[in-house]
């Protein structure tokens, strides 16, 4: 089985993506039968040696391209892969990776799946698993047509650090003439990112039960006052009570705090994947049937406001005592 990893050299998440792919390879492609290389796409803005160190395989093809537009990447792959002897294309997590995986499979008449968690190969079958039914169910699919193009899920795959060592081989390709046409009259509006919820050690997440934008702002203030970062479930950001970049869950941040307090969150499966890696989860919800109450370490069936007010007092008093 010959596999190729496709990475974009300037992606903000490059290291996270690469480590996840590396972890995936360690768990799923370690048999002698599997040999792999990485196609590292770099534009002129990328740092080529940094990018090289993120490659999760010993063999690398470093490819200069004009930009990271999906059409550019697809045209680039078309040129590189003319021989057609790759069995499996591995794309990292992310919206761009998902798009390219699917469209590449179309163009080479293969099969594709996005947000895959694991694969299983036998002599006759290639199977992949991904979450369906809003993250309540794990589905296994048999991919019926080579080449198999899969992008990885952001959650549910153990990442692994890539040891820095010299690469066995580095092929250079210059396809810098490849670029997409800029869309007409386009305007790029960068946004201040929120603090990185995915590296937060102490996280408070608010859910729909907060009831209003005002209550959401209050909880965020309370969270910050006790030293925690603040995230929100999907219904909260979809009602614009909090900004989209606070979203925790399947289509947002996958957090791994030491401590997570889930306040007024019912705990739908698609949300839970965003906090499943927490060391400890404390759920506060006045509804004793909320699903999250079975999936937390500590549960408190009360109005979250009164508990958080009381908790903030206790924490601030404890901190004051320490200083004294």
């Amino acid at each position, binding site marked *: 089985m010959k596999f190729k990893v496709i990475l974009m050299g300037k992606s903000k998440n490059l290291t996270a993506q690469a480590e996840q792919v590396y972890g995936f390879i360690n768990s799923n492609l370690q048999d002698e039968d599997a040999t792999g290389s990485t196609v590292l796409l770099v534009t002129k803005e990328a740092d080529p040696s940094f990018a090289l160190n993120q490659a999760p395989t010993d063999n690398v093809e470093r490819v200069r391209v004009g930009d990271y537009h999906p059409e550019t990447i697809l045209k680039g792959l078309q040129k590189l892969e003319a021989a057609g002897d790759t069995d499996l294309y591995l794309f990292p997590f992310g919206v761009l990776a998902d798009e390219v995986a699917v469209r590449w499979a179309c163009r080479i008449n293969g099969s594709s799946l996005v947000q895959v968690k694991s694969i299983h190969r036998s002599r006759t079958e290639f199977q992949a698993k991904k979450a369906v039914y809003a993250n*309540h169910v*794990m589905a296994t699919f048999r991919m019926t047509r080579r080449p198999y193009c899969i992008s990885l899920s952001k959650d549910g795959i153990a990442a692994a650090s890539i040891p820095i060592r010299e690469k066995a081989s580095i092929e250079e390709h210059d396809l810098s003439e490849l670029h997409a046409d800029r869309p007409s009259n*386009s305007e790029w509006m960068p946004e201040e990112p929120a603090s990185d919820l995915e590296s937060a050690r102490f996280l408070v997440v608010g859910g729909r039960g907060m009831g209003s934008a005002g209550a959401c702002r209050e909880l965020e203030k309370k969270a910050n006052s006790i030293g925690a970062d603040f995230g929100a479930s999907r219904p909260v950001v979809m009602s614009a009570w909090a900004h989209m970049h606070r979203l925790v869950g399947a289509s947002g941040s996958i957090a791994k705090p030491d401590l997570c307090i889930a306040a007024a969150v019912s705990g739908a499966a698609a949300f839970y994947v965003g906090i499943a890696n927490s060391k400890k989860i404390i759920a506060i919800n006045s509804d004793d049937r909320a699903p999250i109450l079975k999936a937390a370490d500590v549960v408190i069936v009360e109005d979250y406001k009164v508990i958080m007010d009381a908790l903030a007092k206790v924490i601030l008093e404890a901190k004051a005592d320490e200083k004294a």
Partner: protein
Amino acid sequence: MKILVSFAIEPEIERLVGDDWLVENGLEIDTGFLKPMLNSYDESALAMALKLVQESRNRPNPMVLTAFTIAAKGAGPILRTLNALPFDQIVHVDHRSDIRFAPRTVAAILSQYVQNHAHQDVLILGQQTSIGANAKTPLLVAEMLGWPYIAGVIRIASADSNQLEVICQVAGGRLRQQIETPCVLSIGDAPNTFLRVPTLKDRMHLGQRPITEMPMDLFDLPRETEVLTNLEIIQHRRSAVSLVGQDPEEIAQKLFDQHLKDTAIFRSDLDRR
């Protein structure tokens, strides 16, 4: 300009609790007793398209808006509601087979509809369904038609009489761009995009207009390249130790003493703040 929104009708799976989550024959979960509904992405798509077209009503060359679905039973009330909002045309492809995990089938039907039955300028689809969650269908449609594709759309507006402008949420910010037609738009997480509720009068007058019904056998259906072989319920369980007390103060103190105080976050030598 002809705009078509393709949407799915799915059972309200978040109403399943505990033992309801049960796999039968390795491939089925009984959802027949649940109310049908629109998933959040499709609802955003329909709401945004409706708003766009209504804003264009008083201009020359008003837009024409079609709602398109491939659905089996339970579709009636939702289709009548869309008819009453109003959408200019409702197209219903009546299928009886299992299309939960059939993105190629759905994409093929939609593409053939556009190529052979009613040309469109813009196709709008929600990013993914709740059940299938393949996130492939809009991409496959774009590939089958050879049209440009834009992901993560969160707002659509008229630029001038024949142009549309979209805003997309991407990593690091938002991109506003004018789009060339024809194209495929995939709707992402768009805050505050809810379908409004039609009045009784609109439902009586507009909701009863005929819906275009199309049988499945009008379309050439491809084989799916990924075949479902197993379903397994994902369970999340933790110890769920219950904390109770006479009042919130007692509970909060217990919480701190028993579960927070000794964690790395609260021990003063590691306190970052």
